[in-house]
């Protein structure tokens, strides 16, 4: 009994220590450059994606799947300006992979602040992103370079 009590105390203390050590992660926004990841995105990633033209095809494919996805397409359609969203995404995706492109849109948090996006909806876009890679015949390992570069935006896009 004594051992159980001691163990519970230990467990509680460990929990508190770990909770105290919990780091405050700042919201991630495009800062006009390649996304920092661990380990880093290889310099060959953009080339393996097919360069500017390859990224453009992938973004078109992504929006093909998004607009066909009944879980999320209304959000994109209601928000409007789908053509502008596609153009901005072509800039953003090249930039986070290290391409010489400047993203000219609003910050991720500003662009999504009033939309009430859930993590479930965010993940639906991730699933469509993988489908777009399949459609563009982008290898899974290369696709994951872009997934790694975009994943941190979850903190600024998902507000619910």
């Amino acid at each position, binding site marked *: 009994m004594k*051992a*159980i009590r001691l*163990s519970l105390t*230990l*467990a509680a203390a*460990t*929990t508190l220590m*770990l*909770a105290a050590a*919990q*780091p405050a*992660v700042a919201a*991630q926004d495009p800062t006009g450059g390649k*996304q*920092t*990841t*661990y*380990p*880093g*995105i*290889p310099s060959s990633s953009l080339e393996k994606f097919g360069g500017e033209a390859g990224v453009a095809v992938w973004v078109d494919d992504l929006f093909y799947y998004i607009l066909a996805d009944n879980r999320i397409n209304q959000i994109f359609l209601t928000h409007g300006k789908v053509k502008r969203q596609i153009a901005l995404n072509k800039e953003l995706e090249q930039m986070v992979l290290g391409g010489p492109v400047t993203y000219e849109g609003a910050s991720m948090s500003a662009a999504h602040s009033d939309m009430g996006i*859930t*993590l*479930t*909806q965010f*993940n*639906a876009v*991730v*699933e469509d992103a*993988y489908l777009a890679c399949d459609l563009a015949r982008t290898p*899974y*390992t290369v696709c*994951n*370079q872009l*997934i*790694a*570069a975009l*994943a*941190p935006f*979850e*903190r600024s896009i998902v507000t*619910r």
Partner: protein
Amino acid sequence: MNRRNKIGAGVGRQLAVLAALLAVSGTASAGLYNDGKVLATGGVSMTDGAGGGGITPWATITGYETRDGINADLHYTYVHLPNYDLNSGGIAIGFFDRVELSYTNDSLPTGNTYDTVGLLTTTVNNLLTVGSTPANTLNTGIEPFNTTVRMNVFGAKIRLFGEAIYDSDNLIPQVAIGGFYKINNNKLLLKTLGADKSKDFEAYVSVTKIFFPLSTLINLTGRYTSANQTGLVGFGGPDGNHRSFRFEGSIAYLLNKGTAIGAEYQMHSDKLHNVNLNILGLTANTGNALLDPILNTVTGSTLRQRESDWRDAFIAFFPSKNLSITMAYAMLGNIVLSPHQDGYYISLQASF
């Protein structure tokens, strides 16, 4: 007859627990049901019932729910070893990708491992019963044939912090703590084997991170436990029930969005290492000139127990969010009296 009734009651109880859990998840499906995690990121079910790999609990919460809802899974695992078959079935529920509750029933038919010992004790019992009261007979917990070990495992896990998936721009992992309460129903057998306790808890800390640029997941776990063979051979040994932290690790490489391959390692107990089976109140290798040759002859081997660290190599398929199939080659080494317990592992998980 009595025994059969007892087993029947046990199964009945388990079904009642299952029904209650299903009812909970049924109520939850009205609005709270969620399957928003990306395919494969819910992990699979480990043999203790928690979300994780095959033998190691991960910091991920089981099921396909995000922070927006609840999801559950049923799992069944079968491990075929030269001398044993492990059947592990149960249910786990993930709440808001934060808390996980699980229940698993492990059943381990031991094949012919104890048959000779079981026959011997039965024979001795028959001899003793002649002209003696039944109270003087031996009970080793070993049946004449195919002694089966049964264990109930209740588990809980809470995710403390970290995002294994989304925080690819920092090195902070997802961290969870959890625990199991394990009740082994073969008290007498465990006494014969020298274990200190038949029921005990385990606590663990798991740290999980996905490195997307490498398509690789790494999990490290420290488990505070005194279990022998995950509790199937009880807890602690002749020196008592001293728990300590043991290391476990998993590495998984994602081949595509629905397939992962990997390997696991789990440090095991030395509490019963080199401890002899305790039969007839004597250990078999104590130099008793009369008993040792008999026992060693009938068993054809020494009655000295051994335990090895567990390792496995696996491939997991995720054909849909409702089903995963894991196949593994499990290298479990020495189990009690039997060496080279390496064999195949298959696990099915149905999520809903």
